[in-house]
């Protein structure tokens, strides 16, 4: 009879033991982080160094500084530097690798480079490396059609004047400082990469593979130690960076771990756990609760906005009045509160607030009776519309559901189709081939490459069959923005005025409209981290400039 109880007791003991181990050991584990350095001196990296874990939501798509045109910027922004930075909030340039620049004439610019800049492999910054990095980006786009090299379209060639000066020769006038401060395709790196892969060909595929295997030759404040694009990227402080004296931040992190955590619940778990210090993708409904737990939030106004585009080649959205009726039926007041849960700014036109070319009051109002009248006048009822959104974007899903419920009042049924980004793009592009197969409405989320209004407005240009998912063709509009773009390098005021007129055309035709400018919250523990003002730059989406982060430990 006694035997009967032994197994039960044993099971209980095992469970208690496991729980005990789990419960007691973490407490012991907190202390060693302080006492450890003496024990682990021989290893190259001491654990006493300040470590920061930044949780980002998407996998890194690549880290070739000249080709990468997507999420890779999160890493690249810290590892490489462009010639100069542009701060759109203050509307001013900040020197980086170039200390000064001047216009020689309409098609020639001179950039003076900073002296004594060292790349991570020890080589020095030269005019040759500027030419190499920028021309590589340009040529790869022209030859292979990939990457952000199109921004250098106006560039004819770069001439190295002497050790510290380069001349940009243009084919037509363009605002080169703006282009040189682009977030993509403007990073400068050492020519020594050619030696590492043993080639002389600037276009060699081996260079790309060399980069993608997790190596870098940048000049930024951090260098790559380990690169696993699907899970984590580890960056280490680059002591010889030229800017440490200027930044004057003795508490900058020594090790930065960019951890890819897709699941919002897991990001929250990591934050509460202390294994993540800065999170980007915690569900917005939970943020008030995070405040209560002592976490703080930095809200970054971004240039990331969501543009609702109508298919103008398919019935019934080819009728301007129908599009207007739909826009009148959207309860714009609740978009920010409901769909974006407060993390957004009511949008106007296509260009986000604070960005060059922003125009106020290009907004539709919620007026359901007007919408009903329009539809009655056209004698349209009982229709079914397709709306394609990107899956996994909480904001788009909520907006779609808002739109659906609202259009139900007009007897319009909306079919929400959530697809992964690649397939959304395929459906969108289909408007040029088979307009009747393309969705009636599609949401395109967009952020700029370099600060020009052209970047936003080009998505309705009839030449842009890649991004113009409306199928909109208007020669007047095309000419207007093309001329404005040409004029940017000559008369900026005038070109902005032309961009404004172009936006009004779009507003009048109700082809596309920005739903909301999104605000990106960064949740962090204020007892551990201090965000300096310069740590975020809206042009560099999701990039935290870690040299401006202070770690208190």
């Amino acid at each position, binding site marked *: 009879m006694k035997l009967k109880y032994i197994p039960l007791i044993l099971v209980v003991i095992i469970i208690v033991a496991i729980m005990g181990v789990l419960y007691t050991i973490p407490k012991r584990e907190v202390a060693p982080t302080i006492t450890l350095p003496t024990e682990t001196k021989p290893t190259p990296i001491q654990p006493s160094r300040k470590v920061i874990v930044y949780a980002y939501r998407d996998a890194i798509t690549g880290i070739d500084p000249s080709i990468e045109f997507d999420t890779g910027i999160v890493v690249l922004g810290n590892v490489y530097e462009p010639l100069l930075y542009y701060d759109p909030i203050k509307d001013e340039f900040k020197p980086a690798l170039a200390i000064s620049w001047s216009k020689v004439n309409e098609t020639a610019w001179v950039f003076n480079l900073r002296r004594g800049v060292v790349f991570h492999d020890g080589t020095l910054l030269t005019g040759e490396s500027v030419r190499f990095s920028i021309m590589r980006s340009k040529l790869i786009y022209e030859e292979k059609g990939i990457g952000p090299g199109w921004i250098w379209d106006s560039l004819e060639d770069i001439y190295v004047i002497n050790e510290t000066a380069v001349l940009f020769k243009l084919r037509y006038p363009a605002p080169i400082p703006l282009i040189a401060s682009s977030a993509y395709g403007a990073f400068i790196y050492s020519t020594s990469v050619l030696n590492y892969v043993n080639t002389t060909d600037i276009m060699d595929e081996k260079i790309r593979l060399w980069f993608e295997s997790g190596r870098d030759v940048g000049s930024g404040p951090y260098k790559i130690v380990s690169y696993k694009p699907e899970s984590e990227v580890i960056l280490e402080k680059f002591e010889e960076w030229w800017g440490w004296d200027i930044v004057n931040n003795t508490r900058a992190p020594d090790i930065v771990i960019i951890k890819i955590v897709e*699941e*919002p*619940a897991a990001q*929250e778990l990591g934050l509460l756990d202390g294994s993540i210090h800065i999170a980007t993708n915690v*569900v917005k*409904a*939970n943020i008030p*609760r995070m405040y209560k737990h002592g976490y703080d939030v930095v809200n970054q106004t971004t240039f990331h906005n969501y543009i609702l585009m109508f298919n103008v080649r398919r019935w019934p959205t080819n009728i301007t009045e129908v599009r207007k009726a739909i826009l009148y039926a959207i*309860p714009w007041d*609740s978009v920010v509160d*409901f769909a974006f849960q407060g993390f957004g700014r009511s949008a106007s036109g296509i260009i986000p607030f604070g960005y060059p070319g922003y125009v106020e009051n290009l907004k539709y109002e919620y007026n359901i009776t007007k919408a009903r009248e329009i539809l009655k006048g056209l004698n349209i009822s009982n229709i079914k519309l397709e709306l394609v959104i990107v*899956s*996994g974007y909480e904001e788009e*899903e*909520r907006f779609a*559901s*808002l*739109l*659906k*419920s*609202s259009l*139900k*009042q007009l007897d319009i049924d909306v079919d*929400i*189709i*959530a*697809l*992964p980004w690649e397939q959304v793009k395929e459906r969108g592009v289909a408007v040029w081939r088979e307009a009747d197969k393309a969705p009636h409405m599609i949401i395109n989320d967009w952020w700029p490459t370099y600060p020009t209004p052209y970047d936003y407005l080009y998505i309705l240009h009839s030449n842009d069959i890649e991004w113009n998912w409306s199928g909109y063709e208007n020669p007047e509009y095309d000419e207007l923005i093309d001329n404005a773009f040409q004029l940017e390098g000559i008369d900026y005021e005038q070109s902005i005025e032309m961009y404004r007129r172009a936006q009004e055309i779009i507003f009048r035709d109700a082809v596309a409209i920005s739903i909301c400018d999104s605000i990106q919250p960064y949740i962090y523990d204020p007892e551990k981290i201090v965000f300096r003002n310069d740590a975020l730059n809206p042009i560099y989406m999701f990039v935290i400039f870690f040299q401006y982060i202070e770690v208190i430990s």
Partner: protein
Amino acid sequence: MNSRIVEGRLTAFLNLFKISRKFSIGFTIMVIMAILSIIGFFNTPYHLEGWGIVTEETMKRQGLPPCLPFNCPNINHVFGTDDMGRDLFSRILVGAHLALIQTVAIVFISIALGIIMGIAAGYSNMVIEKISTYLIELLIVIPSMVLAAALVTIIGRGIQSVVIALIATWSPWYARLTYILVRQLRELDFIKICEAMGFTKTYTIFRHIIPNVAPIIFVEGITDSGSVLIEIASINFLIGVASLTSIDLPDWGMIVGYGIRYIRTFWWISFFPGLFIALTALGLILLGDGLTEALSPWLRRRWRLWF
């Protein structure tokens, strides 16, 4: 089949309830689930789509209680509402028939395919035998989740990708079981006699082999269907958002997967669908266990069947 046999089978079925408590519990759970899913198929207390805010007014006019996001479970919403103000109970009801139909379809098709493959491997000519054995061996090593992911990228999104993946990974198990049973049967005298008497193989298969093999595999299938249900839920939990066409589809696994982000604040969103998956799977497993024990003569002889 005359009426006495039917009657006999009926009493045997009723006897199952007396013999095995597992069977009766499992059966009750499954009957409840079936009723719920039938109700969910025809009608739900609330609409399924997210409302946003505008339709609140219309709803008030219709006399329905308001659907605000993140309502705690209360009288109006038994299981609360989710982040878009959708009533969770309605979604679970609709999810019930989705889950049950998928499970039943997968198990039945896998059993059918499995029996075909198993007999082809165990009782046909050399070439087909070899091919079938390798096919079984090929399919048996493929993990269902990876296959589902591959099918989603290749054939496209939708329930069908997950269902095909699960059929492809479950049928080899039934094929293997059939193969073993067929091998045993072939050694028995009556099959040998059939062969000696010159009956065709087709006749033997349909007259003797399938009737002997099928019941065993079906009982096995009922026990397995619990695991199948959980596997569907797991796959949809992980890749549901990426693999199903509509985000509105109230698949149980997907609701849990979507609600997990709110688990610390609004726990009910993923708690209740998970509970339903668990209950249904438990019902299926108890049903299968009860049947196995009741039908296994050896066990019946020696053991009073305890719960």
